[in-house]
């Protein structure tokens, strides 16, 4: 297929078949933003229900469905895909690559995630969403009537497969596709954290896969792993879930850490303080992340030795995390700090996240955890780390990379209003929840009784949530009103890393010539030690590009269809779906596709005929 022909296809078809990491990245961002709004809406509904004691805005069953879907949606369908969107777009640019290692699989990963997410949400219209919490503890989940949990199991299984594929893709991309001179220890921190997060994905998701497989076999085929009457054990699920679940929270937060590292260093105009310490801290957090999962299970009766070991191991994570916090502070130290919106989010992150982190250490105190566990104290903790860490990171990244990705700058004034309102709402919502938990409010309660001292703080919390909601709408408005602020320099922030070396909008082949990297912060180095221009590592030549493919969409669709077969025991449908899946995979492996080349002349033209 020639280049010209590829361009003449319809826009919709182009997006459905794209394997360009930038477009896949944008797809991830769009879908993730949609699910974020959805999960946020679910949160707002929950908060309305909890506004007054014994409020009857929602039935208890609906509340349980909302809380399950809120947690599941936010973690799997909003936070992770949004991060994946940024990673997809930015990481290849940061390492000077023209593409990811597996463009086809990259697209497949996205479509699997999207269809999994849609499947999960179909449950709302099919007799009720899952209602056992995002952790789906058995036997509540394994014996839950209705099909909600089946949607949970299959939806997560499919989107989880997408995530795993994405993780492997990033790993190989980062190892094999770096530009000459870009050694591992010259990689920008966002790339590093993507790398470590991908390792976590690789090792954490299989445990979830097995957990979900067991739950599916138990529910659909009558297996008895969790059925106590047949000798089953319900703790197995908790282990499998948390062996995945704890690393998962670092999968979320590490890339956010990476984003902050980029932004803080850019806007204090300083090289990141303690680069190698930052890298090692990230690796250590990643490693320790696998050794602490049972801190979610202190009260299930593992015994004091196990509890003590996991408590101490958990506390240890504070050390590398602290190293990172102090390195950021010292990066700011002596810098020239610019308060752009992106940087405001990064600066808002530091105190917010530290507050969430230290309550994490309090939770890790096993003997005290018996009081904290499953109360609003935990809810406060994890929203502090997730919103204070991940969500602020996503917004910071959005403002920072928006001009790179969409070719225009978001309005700074609106952005700052958005920031302050969101930050204020966030602390208002969740700060009081610490105390709610301590004075006796369990989590996952559909309502609470009056006269127990819980009323005022719940109301405050709900008001805070409204602030966040309105702030988010401001952000959406900002996206539309700013469209005219075209950004054409390609380097609006006086950037330091390779993604700012290319013109805006980003050409589909990224780099006309693969750059030669001579230091950490490659662009900054050329600006201040060289002549301001990147050196090329190769002569200008034809550029090879992969062809688009509709198969990722088909494969995911096939799984989507098959899932209904499994949920409703319509075996013919299940088989039909799987035939589509394997058929598409077969076509893929049998049909060789070697892509096409963009001729040198086109690239020269795009560069202005230089």
């Amino acid at each position, binding site marked *: 297929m020639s280049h010209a022909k590829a361009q003449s296809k319809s826009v919709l078809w182009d997006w459905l078949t794209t394997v360009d990491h930038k477009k896949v990245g944008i797809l991830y961002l769009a879908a993730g933003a949609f699910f974020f709004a959805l999960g946020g809406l679910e949160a707002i509904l929950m908060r309305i229900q909890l506004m007054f004691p014994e409020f009857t805005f929602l039935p208890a069953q609906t509340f349980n469905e909302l809380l399950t879907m809120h947690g599941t949606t936010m973690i799997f369908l909003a936070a992770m895909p949004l991060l994946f969107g940024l990673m997809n777009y930015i990481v290849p640019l940061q390492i000077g690559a023209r593409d990811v290692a597996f463009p086809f699989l990259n697209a497949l990963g996205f479509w699997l995630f999207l269809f999994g997410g849609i499947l999960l949400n179909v449950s709302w219209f099919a007799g009720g969403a899952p209602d056992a919490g995002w952790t789906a503890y058995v036997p509540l989940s394994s014996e839950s009537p209705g099909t909600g949990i089946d949607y949970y199991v299959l939806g997560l299984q499919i989107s989880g497969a997408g995530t795993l594929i994405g993780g492997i893709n990033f790993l190989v991309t980062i190892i094999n596709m770096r530009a000459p001179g870009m050694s591992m220890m010259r990689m920008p921190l966002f790339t590093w954290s993507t790398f470590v997060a991908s390792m976590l994905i690789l090792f954490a998701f299989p445990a979830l896969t097995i957990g979900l497989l067991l739950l599916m076999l138990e529910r659909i085929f009558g297996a008895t792993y969790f059925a106590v009457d047949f000798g089953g054990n319900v703790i197995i699920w908790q282990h499998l879930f948390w062996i995945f679940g704890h690393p998962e929270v670092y999968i979320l937060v590490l890339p956010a850490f990476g984003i902050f590292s980029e932004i803080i260093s850019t806007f204090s105009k300083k090289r990141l303080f303690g680069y190698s310490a930052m890298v090692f801290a990230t690796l250590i957090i990643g490693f320790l992340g696998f050794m602490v999962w049972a801190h979610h299970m202190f009260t*299930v009766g593992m015994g004091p030795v196990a509890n*003590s070991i996991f408590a101490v191991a958990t506390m240890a994570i504070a050390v590398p995390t602290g190293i990172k916090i102090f390195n950021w502070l010292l990066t700011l130290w002596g810098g020239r700090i610019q308060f752009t919106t992106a940087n405001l989010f990064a600066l808002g992150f530091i105190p917010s996240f530290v507050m969430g982190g230290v309550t994490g250490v309090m939770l890790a105190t096993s003997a005290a955890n018996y009081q904290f*566990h499953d109360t609003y104290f935990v809810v406060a903790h994890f929203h502090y780390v997730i919103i204070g860490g991940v969500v602020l990171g996503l917004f910071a990244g959005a403002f920072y990379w928006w001009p790179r990705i969409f070719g225009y700058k978001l309005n700074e004034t609106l952005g700052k209003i958005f920031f302050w309102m969101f930050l204020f709402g966030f602390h208002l919502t969740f700060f009081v929840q610490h105390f709610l938990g301590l004075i006796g409010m369990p989590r996952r309660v559909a*309502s609470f009784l009056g006269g127990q001292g*819980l009323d005022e703080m719940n109301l405050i919390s709900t008001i805070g949530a409204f602030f966040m909601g309105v702030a988010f709408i401001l952000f959406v408005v900002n996206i539309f009103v700013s469209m005219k602020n075209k950004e054409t320099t390609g380097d609006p922030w006086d950037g330091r890393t390779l993604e700012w070396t290319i013109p805006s909008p980003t050409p589909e082949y990224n780099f006309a010539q693969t750059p030669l990297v001579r230091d950490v912060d490659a662009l900054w180095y050329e600006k201040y030690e060289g002549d301001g221009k990147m050196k090329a590592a190769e002569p200008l030549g034809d550029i090879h590009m992969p062809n688009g493919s509709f198969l990722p969409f088909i494969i995911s669709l096939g799984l989507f269809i098959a899932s209904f077969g499994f949920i409703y025991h319509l075996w013919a449908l299940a088989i039909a779906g799987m035939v589509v899946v394997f058929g598409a995979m077969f076509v893929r492996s049998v049909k060789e596709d070697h892509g096409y080349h963009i001729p040198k002349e086109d690239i020269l033209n795009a560069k202005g005929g230089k």
Partner: protein
Amino acid sequence: MKYLWRLLPLSFFLLLAGCGQQNLSALDPQGPVAEMQFSLIRLSLYIMIFVIVVVFAIYVFVLIRFRERPGDTHIPKQVHGNKVLEVVWTAIPIFLLLILAVPNVMETFTLADTEPTEDSITVNVTAHAFWWEFEYPDYDIVAGQDMYIPTNTRVIINLESSDVIHSFWVPALAGKQDNVPGNVNDMWIEAPKEGVYLGKCTELCGPSHWLMDFKVIAVETDVFETWAANMAVPAEEKEQSESEVLVEGRTLYEQSCLQCHSISGQGGFGPDLTNFGERTVVAGYLKYEDENIKDWIRDPQSLKPGNGMPAFPDFTEDELDALTEYLKSLKVLEE
């Protein structure tokens, strides 16, 4: 002055505890277990406040001192790092964590020590969706919803579940442990003072999870002994009142309710009602009023969705009155 500074967070806590209910708050411990846990919470909180203060101080200083001023275009020095600093901020957190970890490990073991002693008593707690059953093996009795314990006595608690996972939490007396089907967990509590301590289920267990409340009622030892002895009196040996309403109520009860609700401290499919007359709430949370009792019997599902009791819509108003009177007469402590 220094001393006052240390007290500050404590007084903050007391203030908050005032917000909540004394017998529901982990911040106002009423027994040795909760006290131990509260002291750990305080210790960890002091450490965390120290960390937060240090971080915030540097943070605020940096933001003020190094903010970009109008017209400033200088390029800051590109510092690579600093070995000494790295060591310092690795070592200090490790030290702080040790201060927390050591007492934590010790207390984790103390709390896990559930060996019965000479004068301890044992209660086997079985959680059901959505009510609690308390079996006293030493006394051969079963009680529902209200867990009576003697004051100043070590109470060993064995936790089980008859369906899904629940979790047993009485914040003022002790942190929680889970009721896991198929396993037995144990913990201990002790209440030095007489009092009613609110308890809650803290593991999502279905639509009425939020209503799965219970009470721990600590009474003097002799009161407890009386209670236990009276609980154990078989129904037929009980003095029966001759009032007409109560007789009608008892008859109805025996026809419709006894199959699930024992009145002899022996337990059954539903909560034992031997001492229902001494409850302060109905079904764990409703105000103890005639109307509520009647509403409950008529339609328990709308009050506590998903619970195990069927509706009795066919009782007449009179029958309900009789049943209610009878239920209210079921007492073991006062006559």
